[in-house]
């Protein structure tokens, strides 16, 4: 027999009566409590997704920084390589010396020579051989007879019909 059992019938009756007495909150309070619970549950769910996004954003920021620092360093190196050559600054002439010595002037001011460059506008053409007339005639004489007759014909036409 269970030692923790009520033996008094009156107490048993009271126990049953109490158990049958429902204790409930007013409906409004029940609704408020349920709403509050739902709000908390929603807040927790939203907080979880928010933390997920925050973590993803932080990871991206770290990744971006990790990639941009080496790139920035390379850019600085390139910028240092592209530093312009020093431009000579025109020094104000001293008022006393009107005509400095030629050697000194050459030392101070860099002498720039303007080299004329030959532009070959008709580069596609064959260069004109610069031989003497006798050499050309000798070449003509030693060339192929057929070619020689053609050349002579052409020259005759050019002379007769300029």
């Amino acid at each position: 027999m269970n030692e923790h059992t009520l033996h008094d019938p009156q107490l048993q009756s009271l126990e049953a009566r109490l158990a049958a007495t429902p204790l409930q909150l007013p409906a409004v309070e029940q609704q408020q409590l349920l709403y509050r619970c739902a709000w908390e549950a929603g807040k927790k769910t939203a907080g979880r997704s928010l933390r997920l996004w925050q973590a993803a954003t932080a990871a991206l920021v770290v990744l971006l920084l990790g990639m941009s620092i080496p790139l920035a360093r390379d850019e600085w190196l390139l910028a240092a390589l592209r530093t312009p050559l020093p431009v000579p600054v025109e020094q104000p002439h001293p008022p006393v010396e009107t005509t400095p010595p030629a050697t000194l002037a050459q030392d101070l001011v860099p002498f720039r020579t303007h080299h004329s460059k030959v532009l070959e506008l008709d580069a596609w053409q064959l260069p004109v051989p610069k031989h003497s007339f006798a050499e050309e005639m000798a070449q003509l004489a030693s060339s192929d007879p057929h070619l020689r007759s053609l050349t002579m014909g052409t020259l005759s036409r050019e002379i007769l019909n300029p």
Partner: protein
Amino acid sequence: MPLNAAQLAKLIESQAVCLRLWVRSRCASGEDVVQEAFCRLAVQEPPPENPVAWLYRVCRNLAERQRLGDKRRRERERATCRVEAVPTSEADPLEIAETLAAVEELEDELREVLVARVWGQLSLEEVARLCGVSTATAFRRYEAALKALRAKLETKCENQR
């Protein structure tokens, strides 16, 4: 996955008032404690095996914490705080009010055991564990609570005649 809304609503309907009675002796603002406990239960993942026992334990812990933090407030509000319950269709409102009043007049340790056993429908072992006493002590308190309650209700009935 936490408890769904239907389970939560059922627990609120059956246990909210009892939990207020349960923590009444320990803290002044039992409503806040009970609300906090239900909110914690709503987000508890996975849900406890026995939600009722879990609620009683959490309410007691929260009430203890609040009591330690706000002792003066407790004294002030205890005088005015009354647990209210609405009668259901099949219950007599007067009988419920009398029962509640009699339960509130019980000593704290007797009321705790009675509420947890009768309305919380917890076993004596669970009640003993919650109250931090042996099962025999819990049963002794339960029996004493029923006797005291019977005496109070009889006295009230005699006074009403």
